[in-house]
């Protein structure tokens, strides 16, 4: 009886300690988000190859269904494509003239345009749908040159950015994750805004510059290149609800169809990590007047997608 009581007491204490430790871990994670990065990488390396084998037959079935659909819908699509092609030809001629003008203007103004660098073309192995965090796993990792914070671009548009890497696998933060914020531009009006994930199929358009100009359903959004991670001009989505606040955006590319994606280097190189230590604390006016050597707060460069 006494022993039972002691055991119950010990187990209660252990349970309490464990829960307290969990909360402590959360606080540590808040201060240092990179904690546990390596362990996650190891688990990624373990899980991804297994799923890439398991999903192979399902991919085969999916391709077969696609093929059947292609076969039966071919005539309709051909007619539609011919119509689109005629419109595209006209657009192309205008674009060629614009491109020529742009080249001349750039030569005059000596604009330096950063190059987009392809690092790897990989396939999306799996996207977790069992968690509040929306991520996908791809079958290439640090051994292929992939680092956290690189844009992931599918054939139809932007997919997301890399979050963590293992040796042979990496995790991609999808656009629909609540932590994802993509600087975009409305193509028709040229306004910049943020496409923010909310854990639903559509994104929200927030912080639009010039909110008094109305959006229209069907307005296309492309990346603006602000923040330096995503290269400009990559399709992000289409406005599907313009009147509400915030407007809703349907992503151009979903990881469902995007079997293969490109992982590129961050568009503009991020500032070096070993910048001199600075403080953001306000310096008293007296200290400045006295001529004491005070650390100067450097301009803080916030990455596009914190």
């Amino acid at each position, binding site marked *: 009886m006494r022993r039972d009581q002691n055991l119950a007491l010990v187990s209660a204490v*252990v349970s309490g300690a*464990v829960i307290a430790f969990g909360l402590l871990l959360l606080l540590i994670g808040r201060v240092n988000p990179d904690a546990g990065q390596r362990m996650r990488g190891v688990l990624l390396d373990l899980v991804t190859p297994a799923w890439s084998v398991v999903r192979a037959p399902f991919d085969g079935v999916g391709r077969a269904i696609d093929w059947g659909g292609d076969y039966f819908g071919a005539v309709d699509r051909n007619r539609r494509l011919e119509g689109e092609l005629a419109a595209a030809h006209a657009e192309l001629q205008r674009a060629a003239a614009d491109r020529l003008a742009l080249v001349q203007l750039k030569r005059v103004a000596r604009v330096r345009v950063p190059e987009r660098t392809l690092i790897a073309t990989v396939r999306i192995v799996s*996207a977790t749908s069992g968690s509040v965090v*929306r991520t996908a796993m791809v079958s290439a990792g640090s051994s292929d040159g992939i680092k956290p914070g690189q844009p992931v671009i599918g054939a139809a548009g932007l997919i997301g950015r890399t979050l963590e890497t293992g040796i042979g696998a990496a995790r991609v933060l999808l656009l629909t994750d*609540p932590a994802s914020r993509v600087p975009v531009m409305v193509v028709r009006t040229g306004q910049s805004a943020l496409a923010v994930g*909310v*854990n639903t199929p559509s994104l929200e358009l927030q912080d639009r510059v010039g909110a008094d100009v109305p959006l229209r359903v069907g307005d296309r959004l492309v990346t603006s290149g602000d923040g330096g991670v995503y290269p400009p001009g990559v399709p992000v989505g289409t406005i599907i609800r313009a009147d509400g606040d915030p407007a809703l955006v349907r*992503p151009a590319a979903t990881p469902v169809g995007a079997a293969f994606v490109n992982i590129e280097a961050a568009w503009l190189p991020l500032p070096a990590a070993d910048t001199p230590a600075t403080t953001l604390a306000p310096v008293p006016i007296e200290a400045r007047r006295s001529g004491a050597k005070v650390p100067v707060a450097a301009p803080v460069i916030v990455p596009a997608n914190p």
Partner: protein
Amino acid sequence: MIGSVPPLRLMSPRERRRYWIGHWRLAVPALVTLALLLLMTAPVLLPMPVFPQLGLLGIFVWATFQPGLMPPWLAFLLGLVADMLFAQPLGVNATGFAVAALFVRSFEARYGHHAHRFDWAVATGVIAGSALLTWQLMALAGRPVPLLAMGWQVLTSALAYPPVVWLCGWVQRRAFGLRQ
């Protein structure tokens, strides 16, 4: 059980090995729950969190089937694995799973065993509570998520309870025999 075997020091290495390996059943609940967690990373390409919380259901079911083999500290360790598998801040699932195991343990100790449907209702309550807790803990970790989008997962998890119970019951019969 311990009393019936000779002291470890008197065993030959082979006997000692067999003695330790003979305890494999202790790891069964943890391994089944781990397998359920790995199943949750399956490539279900839907743009919302809709895949059922199989890991939490595993914790719940094993905490009712084998309370001694699913203590809160084990749930905590499984939650850490879940956090790393799903790229969540370390500690979100760990705390949630440990709290769930602790709740089930105290609930069962106080109110005893129940019919399947009652347990189903309790499991649904635990999952909904865990969703609320996850919402708060994600905010505490500095990565707030919207609450309403998690409703689908609560729904699918409630629907996934009977299959998980069936699976765990099958493992229970195979590994531990007919008891209770």
